[in-house]
């Protein structure tokens, strides 16, 4: 019965979507706004990657909100797991196999370096703070797979997160001071295509990369279940 109602509802919904999708033809240029970004993006922001230009300059305020959402997720995550009970009979995890442990130890620095490369080059090539941060987090995931009992300091994670978040806002306020607008690109834009160009974009992406990396690592860290760190209420 429930299934029939669900299917009926979804049929109505798909018909509605079908009707409205008719006015959005696929593969046709539709917007003036997007064209403007493509035509003037490099000149306005100095970044070769227009998506980065949109994410961090034209719509930088969205990104501030997005960073806040991720911060919130970590906060909420640890708030929810904070009152978790400690399990008494927690058997030691089985040690990983030799191949996994040596392979991961070998890969860890390279993956980390790759993540850093991605977010530093965010304004030149595909990628940026979020992608780079995720790669860094996966490097730490490898690390935790090898050493499941490794403890990490939550305090330091939290400090990194809040400091890099504050750095983003401070850059924004500096933009307000020097450029009259919050988050305005007040640094010299340089020559497009060079590593040091595009004003505040690489700077912000570095902070975002660090922040996202530490946040996602924090989530993985808490989920990996180190019960010895959970406090009992």
């Amino acid at each position, binding site marked *: 019965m429930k299934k029939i109602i669900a299917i009926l509802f979804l049929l109505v919904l798909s018909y509605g979507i079908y009707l409205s999708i008719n006015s959005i033809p696929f593969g046709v240029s*539709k917007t003036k706004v*997007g064209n403007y970004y*493509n035509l003037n993006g490099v000149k306005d922001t100095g970044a070769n990657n227009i998506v980065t230009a949109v994410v961090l300059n034209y*719509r930088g305020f969205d990104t501030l909100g997005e960073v806040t959402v991720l911060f919130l997720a970590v906060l909420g*995550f640890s708030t929810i797991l904070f009152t978790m009970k400690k399990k008494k009979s927690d058997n030691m995890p089985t040690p990983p196999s030799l191949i996994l442990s040596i392979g991961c130890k070998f890969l860890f620095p390279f993956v980390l370096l790759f993540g850093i490369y991605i977010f530093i080059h965010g304004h030149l090539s595909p990628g940026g703070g*979020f992608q780079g941060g995720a790669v860094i987090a996966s490097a730490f995931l490898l690390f935790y797979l090898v050493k499941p009992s490794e403890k990490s300091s939550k305090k330091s994670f939290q400090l990194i997160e809040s400091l890099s978040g504050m750095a983003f806002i401070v850059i924004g306020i500096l933009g307000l001071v020097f450029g009259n607008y919050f988050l305005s690109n007040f640094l010299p834009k340089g020559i497009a295509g060079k590593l040091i160009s595009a004003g505040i974009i690489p700077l912000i992406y570095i902070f975002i990369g660090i922040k996202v990396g530490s946040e996602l690592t924090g989530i993985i860290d808490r989920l990996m279940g180190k019960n010895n760190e959970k406090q009992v209420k």
Partner: protein
Amino acid sequence: MVYYIGAFGLIIIGLYVLMVKRNLIKMIIGISLINTGLNLFLISVGFIKLGTAPIFSKPGLNPKIMVDPLPQAMVLTAIVISVATLAMALALAIRLYEHHGTLDMGKIKDQKW
């Protein structure tokens, strides 16, 4: 056009899971499918036939046939937001399992109207 079908197919499957299934992890998977479908839809709205990626990675690219960068920026935001929601949901699922020993939302009915 196939992209639209794929995107809305995923959204519909996700909604179906949310409406029919009662297992919490299954419902979270449903939310994840909805978000994936939405991302695909937004990107395909910005696509232009024979367009190139909006990155001036080599000289001689024509900005007029580049695809729309704004949906891509939106989707980047949406991906991060969906990860945030999923992480919260999984934490809640773990706690719920700890309290009730089950993930079946149909069986967990402490609160009624």
